[in-house]
């Protein structure tokens, strides 16, 4: 018997860790990611358990104490009808943290499917779909939102659908270029030489290899989605009262700034900013980990 290469698969230990483990490892060493992740985690904890440690009921009014400035009793003051701003800020992350991630997930799923189709088939499919997507991307989100609200009525679902569909073409573009590069690799030719269906080739062969750019794009989009949700709420198209949502609170209180009641708006604004920054830092970290 010829003893041929009786070997351990991993020849040297530089290669022992899998790609996923390697990425996780470098994520855990990225300060940017950890800081961003901590901020996001903080707000997620507030959304889940905020009720239990908020000092007041965020919806309970107290007209006598309306527009009280920050004090030891009301750390962030109270709003027009005397609700505790601190409690509202803590609990106010709940809606935005449901709507924005769901919208991003929708965008990712739709965008990935479109990107796979256009990148894989190229030719006519690509031309037609790409033109439609470009046209779609040229319309501002707000106008899409207005139209959708007229058609569907205001609700969280509307916001999710509007943001999801507006972001889908952007994700599709990223996926498409990754798929076009993969398509040139010989394993795709090998799949064709097994008479695999286009569906199998796209979703089983190619998709797993384009996950990294999709993940990066998704985290980046999440930051934009949060901002978009807050904007829509501020304009009254999104989350509806009596939710203590940040965007909504700013919208109903920003008239007060002129009267010097800055606290009714500032803390909500800071909350939005911190969440967006947190997500963006995490996205930077993810991007770095996949591109090392």
């Amino acid at each position, binding site marked *: 018997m*010829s*003893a*041929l*290469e*009786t*070997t351990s*698969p*991993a*020849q*040297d*230990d*530089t*290669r*022992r860790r*899998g*790609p996923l483990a390697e990425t996780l490892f470098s994520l855990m060493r990225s300060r940017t990611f950890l800081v961003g992740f901590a901020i996001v985690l903080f707000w997620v904890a507030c959304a889940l358990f905020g009720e239990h440690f908020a000092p007041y009921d965020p919806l309970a009014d107290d007209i006598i104490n309306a527009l009280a400035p920050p004090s030891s009793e009301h750390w962030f003051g109270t709003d027009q009808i005397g609700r505790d701003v601190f409690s509202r800020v803590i609990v106010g992350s709940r809606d935005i943290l449901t709507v924005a991630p769901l919208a991003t997930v929708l965008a990712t799923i739709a965008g990935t499917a479109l990107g796979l189709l256009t990148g894989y088939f190229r030719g006519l499919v690509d031309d037609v779909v790409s033109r439609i997507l470009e046209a779609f991307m040229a319309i501002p989100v707000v106008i899409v939102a207005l139209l959708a609200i007229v058609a569907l009525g205001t609700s969280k679902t509307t916001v999710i659908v509007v943001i999801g569909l507006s972001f889908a073409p952007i994700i599709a573009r990223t996926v498409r270029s990754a798929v076009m590069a993969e398509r040139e*690799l*010989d*394993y795709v*030719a*090998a799949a*064709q*030489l*097994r*008479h*695999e269906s286009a569906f199998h080739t796209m979703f089983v*062969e190619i998709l*797993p*290899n384009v996950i990294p750019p999709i993940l990066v794009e998704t985290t980046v989009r999440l930051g934009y989605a949060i901002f978009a949700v807050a904007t829509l709420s501020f304009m009254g198209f999104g989350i509806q009262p009596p939710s203590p949502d940040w965007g909504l609170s700013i919208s109903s209180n920003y008239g007060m700034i002129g009267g010097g009641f800055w606290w009714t708006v500032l803390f909500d604004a800071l909350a939005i900013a911190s969440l967006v920054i947190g997500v963006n830092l995490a996205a930077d970290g993810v991007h770095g980990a996949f591109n090392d």
Partner: protein
Amino acid sequence: MTEPAKAKNALELDDLSVAYRVNGRNRAVLRNLSLTIGQGEAYGLVGESGCGKSTVALTVVRYLPRNGSITGGAISLDGQDVMKLDGEALRRARAESVSMVYQDPGKALNPSIRIGRQLTEIFELAGISGKGAEDRAIAMLNRVRISDPAGVMQRYPHQLSGGMQQRVAIAMALANDPSMLILDEPTTGLDATVEAEVLDLIAQLRRELSASILFISHNLAVVSNMCDRVGVLYAGMLVEEGPTDVVFNDPRHPYTVALLRCLPRGGQRKDQGRLDTIPGFLPGIGAAIKGCAFADRCALADERCRTELPPLYDLSDQRGTRQSRCHYHDKAQALPRTTPSDGASAPKPATAPVLRVAGLNKTYASHGHALRAVKDVSLDLRPGETLGLVGESGSGKTTFARLLLGLVPPDDGGTIELEGKALAPKLANRGDDQVKAMQIVFQNPDSALNRSHSIRHILGRALKRLAGLSGKAQEARLEDLIRSVRLTDRHLAVKPRQLSGGLKQRVAIARAFAGDPRIVVCDEPTSALDVSVQAAILNLLADLQAKQDVSYIFISHDLGVVRYLSDNIAVLYLGRIMELGPSEEVFSGPHHPYTEALLSAVPKLDQTETARIRLDGEIPSATNPPPGCVFQTRCPRKIGPICEQQEPPLAEAQPGHSIRCHIPYSELAQLQKAAVTELA
């Protein structure tokens, strides 16, 4: 041990140790390496991939990657201690006395800057500016024999062929008249003829420049042609060293012996027995080595080898200074074979062809021009037979393979018949049976195996689709399949990246064989592999063929490899078959002038100085092939205007042997015989 040097040595490594830091630990890559290169000497460094050759080069120019460090020893260049230099002094030494040329010319050239600018920059750094720098740049390009240097100065790197890029890279390396030139696999990425050209250039420059050369290569034949002395590196240690011809003809270390045996030499063919292989792997970096580093893979190893590190035994004699790091250096050549030499494939009796190709054409549109990638190709392939496809890059080998497989559709008109039935031009329109009958082993396993899937998934899927097996039956067949390519269960759970190149290529071969194919196209299946691994893969292909009566279409630019495996050879040039015939006849001649040139371009181990037939100039563009015989612009045997006016037919010169040339067969025979006697 070394004689006192008359002049200062160009390079001296003294007890050099280098380590890479991985996962917080320093891992030894070079271990107490000492070697000396004299003034004007060319020194070759050979060894398997990963033995530390490039690390030697990077250490000398002090360009180690960030995690690399010199952990001991000394380096001196021209008598100057390099390790004491730092900052400005180091930069000057680097700029003035050493230059390096890499395997990949892309590494040395900036893709977004014109060649001219990149060259003049070097002279400007040295204080020559304006017109002076430009003149020097043109002189440099002339020196590396680039025609139309002024035109080339205006171009970007991607507008040059691989061979020209490498010549420009060499020009840049020579710009400062270095006293030491380091070439790290300078021709590995190039075609045989381009390789020959670049090697000729380096040999000529050596005579003109008196620079010393450190020449790194895994190709023993190239080193044997280029170098005065050779060192064999194994696991970061020098295991054998001496004058090149002495080491290669009379090796005294079992590793050198084994490396030489891996090569198909002297026209060896599959029906004369299998190649020898080296079992096992190089120890990983940082591995603790007790005794002889080669002991795990050495058939001569005994207890002493495993415990006692062999010193470099001095074996100098009248043929020169040489040394070997083996306790049993006198017995090295008695190293038993690891692969029995029997197992020869018997020649096949003539049967009906399994594949018939007639009048196949492929035209691509390229910037509004028609590019005839494959022109009027007709040939037959019999069961159990190998057809070798050879030709320079751009000659249409891969396109032809893709046409057969249906991955690209041919022009209307030609026919491909598989077992008597016409094949649809498009893969999608072929029957499942037809698809599984013809499979391919790609050149690059990293591209061919899906990196997200486990080996079990990859092969399981192939069995399901190509053999229609699932469940228990699939499991059972999978066992057989991996055993037939000599993998084990342990390899099934892992992803491709966890396997070495040779193991990956076995998986690719297993996949191609999953559905009991009639024909397997092998597109440069061993070009990314070490000779030791290449030998194992070639043996495997020969064994599978003998057992399953499968036919191969075997594409390779390594003519020794093609000769080993092929029964018939087709020589392609600009998409046309220039010669087609039985392997032995094509190789031994009389052959087409193009084949003659290709063969003489191959560096051979057995003869050092060959009078090469040089192919001048680049392969013409396929969008605008020369009129008459397409080879006339480069043909050394061109007979006159007829070659420029009339395209010669592919005429049968002997039964089964056709040549496309105006020179009659008998005359070719005389011409080529005369050339051989002239040499002798």
